[in-house]
């Protein structure tokens, strides 16, 4: 059995990126949209770790970057969920279709 090549991993991460993008554009629930954004960020994490391991094993730039991305994604999710909770208090719904008072 041949070892997994970089191409396989890049294929996975690109697919994950576009699945996240598709989810962000089609889902109407705010929590699900957040999950879609997490998919995008995680695909970037896979990219960084894979590039680090296969192409530039000399230093750990990519691995460190991905650790920081995970931490920042957590912070972002915390603020976003706080906002969503506040929206739920005001609108009684977390569907984006119910929060469109401003248009044009």
């Amino acid at each position, binding site marked *: 059995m041949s070892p997994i090549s970089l191409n396989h991993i890049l294929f996975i991460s690109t697919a994950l*990126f576009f699945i*996240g993008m598709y989810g*962000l554009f089609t889902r109407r629930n*705010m929590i699900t*949209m*957040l999950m879609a*954004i997490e998919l*995008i*960020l995680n*695909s*970037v994490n896979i*990219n*960084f770790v894979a*590039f680090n391991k296969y*192409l*530039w094993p*000399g230093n750990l*730039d*990519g691995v*460190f*970057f991905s650790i*920081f*991305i995970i931490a*920042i994604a957590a*912070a*972002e999710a915390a*603020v*976003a969920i*706080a*906002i*969503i909770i*506040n*929206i739920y208090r*005001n*609108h009684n719904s977390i569907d*984006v279709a119910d*929060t*469109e*008072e*401003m248009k*044009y």
Partner: protein
Amino acid sequence: MPFSFLSIMQFEWSALILLFIVLFLRIGKKVISNTSLLYIVNGLLLINFISGFFAHEDGTLFGTMFVSDSLIRFEKSLLNLGVLIISLQSFHWLSKHHHASEFYMILLSSLTGMFFMLSSNNLFMLYLSLELSAIPLAALANFDLQKRVSGEAAIKYIISSAFSSGILLMGISLIYGALGTLSFDAISLNMTGEPLLLFGFICLFAGFAFKLSAVPFHLWTADVYEGAPVAVTSYLSVISKGAMVFVFITALFRVFANVAESWYQMLFVISIATMIIGNLFAIRQQNLKRFLAFSSIAQVGFILIGISGHSDAAVASAVYFIMVYIFSNLAAFGIISLVSDVTGKENIDDYKGFYSTNPLLAWVLTIALFSLAGIPPTAGFFGKFFLLMSGAAADNNTLIIIAALNMIVSLYYYLRVVKAMFMDSNAQPIEKLKPGWMPVTAYIVCTAGILLSGIIGGAFEYIISIVSTH
């Protein structure tokens, strides 16, 4: 020098110290009234702004991740000045708000992020500081917790900002994969036009364009500006956008100078689209905040033209324009925030007959709008003039002609507001307003800045001189 990490990072330290002072005032046993807290914080912000003039040490820190020179310090001082003016103007709003100290804590952490962003010399640092400046802003946009539109603005801001930083990160990861480095210096040496690198650069460019609200990526701007509290809107439209423009210039001119032909084409298309769409949508707006949102989109189009010149003069003209833009936009937002705090009115029609009741405030708003439109005695004219001059250096007359036509269109909608204030009669105009001395100081500073920084030519020459040493 053993303590150079203190003096090179002076702006960051002083913003952080301010943040902690506000925090200790908040959690201390003694309860401080909102008014005295605002006096203390505004005094500290003034000290923070003045202390910026005494920073002088150039250098790099954290293994060249952090860099500081005279141009970067000047940009940081501009941001400090903008924050001080915004803080003076929001006195009315904050003195009645229950969470005034939290407002300053979040604001200052975002400001610290912008300082680090301006000084970043590494894509890793750039990403971290970008997020440090963007995430607190989402919390700020939702600061009027009971208002329905405020929450809507915040969720729109955080989703689009998270999505744009996702795209930006994709670009960074591809550049890292191709070059194996994140440092600006190494990337600028090895950057070539090969497809993978170029694709990474386009992703990075798109992430920046999102934050700048350039046209294909502008959809969040108007909603966020309308829904957020006015103080936050002015912060978003002036400080946040100014910092992004500065970083964008660094990225294009220093890091990606090797692919200048590619990004010139991108800037060409984006700047034309940004000006035209910003102007056309501004014409039909009724809400003043939304109107200023689209006008600020159109202004970004002009800045992008200036940047496309790719010379020292281009950097200087963009920095000068941001300075003028801080004065003129903040003057306009200052009047709007006062009126909206006292009466709750934000529509252009509500401003009919504003001159008959508040002549001085009407004049301040008029001068600000003239400056945004670029009418000669004001600094806005010189700002746009320098931008178009540096854009014209690239010998692309199509771009300049389209920009000139757009300036004529923009005159129409700016003067529409002026006409409503001066000429239209109204049975129930906005009553006579009494701003406190703090907002009045802010108006005086802004108006003086608009009138003097253009006529007194030293400002632009000073910026040119520090750009050439950059």
